[in-house]
């Protein structure tokens, strides 16, 4: 009941507001084209007729929410999931490279962080490059990665996953560097009084202390991974995936398709962040975390 009042009501009221605004803009943005059509057909519509027509165009400038909802529902639930028009199928294609890239990215991020925390030279030499790597626009790098890897015979899942990795290792590195350095001086002194080795201090103190930081950064990383996978599908002329659906929709002015692919992408992103969040909470509970 409390979560209902605290979370559901505020979230739904914002959603309702967005939907209302969306309808208003759908009418405003689609009206000029509709008037044009009416004039050519020699029709005169009343105001309410005009509104009805602007919300049911086949290729609207801005599709109405219900058009997107119907398209999303049809392409998600009514198509066999093997069909390449199915959003489930396309989402799965994108999801698989997202997950692979996320796994690589998390592993790479942790390895780099461990290096930075333990080797002073790496701290000074690597960190500026890591930050610089994220200032390069991914849209410019993505085609190069795909072309270069294609030239050496690697295509399909791996190149897309590489772009996900490129985007997702960064938050993990930053989070884990912070996490591995998070133990208090007192805890480090304590290990020192036991004459603990670096490895013992690492496994018994630094690693457990960094776990909350890991999950926080993994939430950011998994969303970045999805963006990476979608961006990776754009320049390759991929035949399937959410990125491919977006591109195809843009080619053929299927604005409703674009929007429903967008919705599918958001749903996948929300689910991924949620799964990481739940995993984080389970691990926290297993590590004796105080129930919130």
């Amino acid at each position, binding site marked *: 009941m409390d979560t209902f009042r605290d979370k559901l009501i505020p979230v739904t009221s914002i959603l309702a507001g967005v939907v209302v605004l969306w309808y208003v803009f759908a009418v405003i943005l689609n009206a000029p084209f509709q008037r044009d059509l009416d004039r050519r057909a020699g029709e005169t519509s009343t105001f309410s007729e005009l509104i009805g027509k602007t919300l049911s165009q086949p290729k609207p400038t801005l599709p109405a929410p219900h058009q997107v909802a119907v398209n999303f529902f049809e392409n998600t639930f009514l198509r066999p999931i093997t069909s390449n028009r199915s959003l489930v199928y396309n989402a799965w294609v994108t999801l698989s490279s997202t997950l692979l890239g996320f796994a690589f990215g998390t592993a790479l991020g942790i390895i780099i962080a461990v290096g930075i925390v333990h080797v002073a030279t790496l701290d000074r030499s690597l960190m500026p490059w890591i930050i610089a790597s994220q200032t390069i626009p991914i849209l410019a790098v993505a085609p190069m990665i795909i072309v270069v890897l294609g030239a050496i015979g690697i295509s399909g899942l791996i190149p897309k996953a590489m772009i996900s990795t490129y985007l997702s290792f960064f938050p993990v590195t930053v989070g884990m560097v912070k996490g591995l350095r998070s133990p*208090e001086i*007192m*805890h480090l002194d304590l*290990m020192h*009084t*036991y*004459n603990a080795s670096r490895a013992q201090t690492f496994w*018994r103190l630094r690693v457990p202390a960094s776990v909350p930081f890991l999950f926080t950064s993994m939430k950011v990383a998994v969303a970045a991974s999805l963006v990476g996978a979608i961006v990776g599908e754009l320049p390759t002329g991929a035949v399937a995936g959410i990125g491919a659906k977006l591109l195809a929709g843009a080619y053929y002015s299927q604005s409703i398709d674009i929007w429903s692919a967008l919705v599918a992408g958001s749903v996948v992103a929300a689910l991924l962040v949620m799964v990481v969040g739940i995993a984080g909470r389970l691990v926290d509970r297993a590590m*004796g975390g105080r129930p919130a």
Partner: protein
Amino acid sequence: MTGTSPAVVAASKLGLTFQTNDGPVQALSNVDLTIGKGEFVSFIGPSGCGKTTLLRVIADLEKPTSGTISVNGMTAEQAREKRAYGYVFQAAALFPWRTIERNVGLPLEIMGLSKAEQGERIKRTLELVNLSGFEKKYPWQLSGGMQQRASIARALAFDADLLLMDEPFGALDEIVRDHLNEQLLELWGRTNKTICFVTHSIPEAVYLSTRIVVMSPRPGRVSDIIESTLPRERPLDIRETPEFLAIAARVRDGLRAGHSYDD
């Protein structure tokens, strides 16, 4: 008491100067001190007098810049490597992701003791601090006083003869503090450990100690050493006796003398 028993801690002309951005700070200067086996020595003084620094030098958490220090007849570093002491910090400093028993077992794990030996020692030390039954609890499920007792158990777990305590009860309320003082004395009586105890409470220092080292700041130094004439058996109400009050008055005088120096 000092001359007869072998020295557990011996400091001679000990000095430590920290280099800070505002120039060098003399945290310790010319400290001469010998602590014998089985003594309970309190270090008392205003903040900045170097009492915690001295304890950290004994523990090899800080290196002196002049003079010498020996612990159990070795250098402080060798003593630390041999795990010659247990250290209790101002806060309990328990690992929040470990249960009480696994916190107490942490030093034993690091020393590489067998699981059976670990379990046996954990059980014994938790009994010693009256925490039996709380093995599976996490630190946040315990009160502040219980957490500090768990951290004392952790310092006792590996049977070091020397216990270094840095204002261990400073963050606790007076009632809990009285109770823990009583328990600590009882524990000291039973185990015959040597205890170095940093505090800024005069009654606490007088109640617990066989010797009170009064320190004063700028530069941190020993300004007086007071031998306690109280018996080893000390009920809490000993604090109302004239003998107790006389020692407390001497400590207070020592502190005042140290202060007037830089007023």
